[in-house]
């Protein structure tokens, strides 16, 4: 029997898989200490509402990765909103999105994940994740 999984679900599984120590799937992020912190939280930072699909945290690195799974489209305001989160990482702890890291010591980055090449469709050059 074949089950259809949406691209969103496949990406979710893949990113979670990267955080598991497993000999059948790359465990790159697990080796770096990342674990799944929370799935699909929604919270506001400095007035900007952010709803990443997945938050991965490496506690010993005091670093969190905000992941947003995309098909092919980005909304313009999303980049700015995630930038707000990157500029105010303490708020991730204070809003309960990240656990176990002192708010003033946390750093964070965000990333879009897609099966398409978002950089071909959108000008992302002003952000350093391209």
């Amino acid at each position, binding site marked *: 029997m074949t089950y259809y999984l949406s691209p969103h679900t496949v990406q979710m599984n893949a990113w979670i898989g990267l955080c598991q120590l497993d000999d059948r799937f790359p465990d790159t992020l697990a080796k770096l200490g990342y674990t799944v912190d929370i799935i699909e939280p929604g919270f*506001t930072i400095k007035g900007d*509402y952010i709803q990443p699909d997945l938050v991965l945290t490496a506690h010993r690195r005091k670093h969190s990765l905000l992941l947003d799974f995309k098909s092919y489209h980005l909304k313009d305001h999303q980049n700015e909103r995630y930038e707000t989160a990157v500029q105010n990482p303490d708020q991730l702890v204070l809003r*309960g999105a990240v656990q176990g890291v002192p708010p003033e010591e946390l750093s964070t980055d965000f990333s879009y994940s897609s099966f398409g090449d978002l950089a071909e469709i959108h000008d992302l050059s002003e952000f350093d994740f391209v």
Partner: protein
Amino acid sequence: MPPLNPTDRRELYEHFQHVIEGTYDQLLEDQKLNYKQNMLKSFLVETNVEPSLLEEQFEYVTVEKIDYSLFEVLIDTSSDEDEEEEILTFYLDSQDERFWTFYSIEKSRPAKDTMEDLIMTEQSGLDYLWFPAQLQRYFTKLGEFQGTGINYDAEDVFSEAYINEHLPFGELSIQSSGQGTSWLLDALSDADLKRFMSLSSVKIRREMEEGVVIERIDNNGRITTRGGNAIQAHLSFVETIRELYADLIRGIEEEGRIGYPIREIESEEGERHSSGQSVEGTPIVINLANSVENLKEFADSFTSATKPLRLWGVGTWLADDYYKIRGTDLHNNDSFTLEIKRDWIRLYLPDDACGNTALRIFSNIQRYYDAEASFGERSDPKNSKVGLTG
């Protein structure tokens, strides 16, 4: 099912999420408190102490750290007559060092009384937030306006004789909810009642990207979530209110306190010398729509050291219609000076005074004497979204 004893912020917020959604039906069967009947209450409190000092200051308070800037605060409210201990649980969020938030899902009355006892204790280092009517009106624009409470309580401050002689009401209380609230307020504001329409609470429905919350905001910083589906929306709302108030306080403390700094000049040899003193800051002018008929009695009533104002002072006449009071704010021992004429009051605060004192005096004048009292143009806090002049 989220635990009852949260070990971090996320668990606490999940717990509150269930409270807001009212989904505690299956929970707590063996617990003493029936949490599902209680609403989430957030008390914004101004402070100049550390959370850990609460335990030293109050022997009936226990403070335990849960997470970063998050504490469980247990307050023993038992009296000698009680057979069982009555301990109320609050959660203190001290991420903003000056404006704390105490969360509670205890019953409304005990929670409110307990916070009052804590804040009103002399030298507690804690104070309410004092929302002026202008700020309360601004809150009604932050969502769909659904209700209001109006409480004019001159009886709490003035003598019966003063009220009989000078005021049409000793007390005026109106509660309204529903879509007609705006209509009612507009109708009453057109009448000559405006001076006595002192907003004590407003209720709004706020629909945000996070979800919906129905909030009641009391004029002393208490926010009660009366329904909704998103704790994050409530947290954002509390933050919005805190920032609006903090902007007002910052503006007052930058411009509305009087200091006498010593000016210095630097000689050619690089040595610094005093070149005299200057005056910085301006007094805060409060304009009154409800003119004061008896200056001395008015001033003495406001500075009698009793609750709710807890201001103490000694007055002198500067002229026939010009009265001055030098006083002390018993909340924090800040000194202040009031100069009173029939239609305005000047408030002088020293440069180390707390800006909260100014808003306490101002908002209490609105509540107990003149709901239309406003700041003078030059006293309006700069860089604040909310003006206090109108």
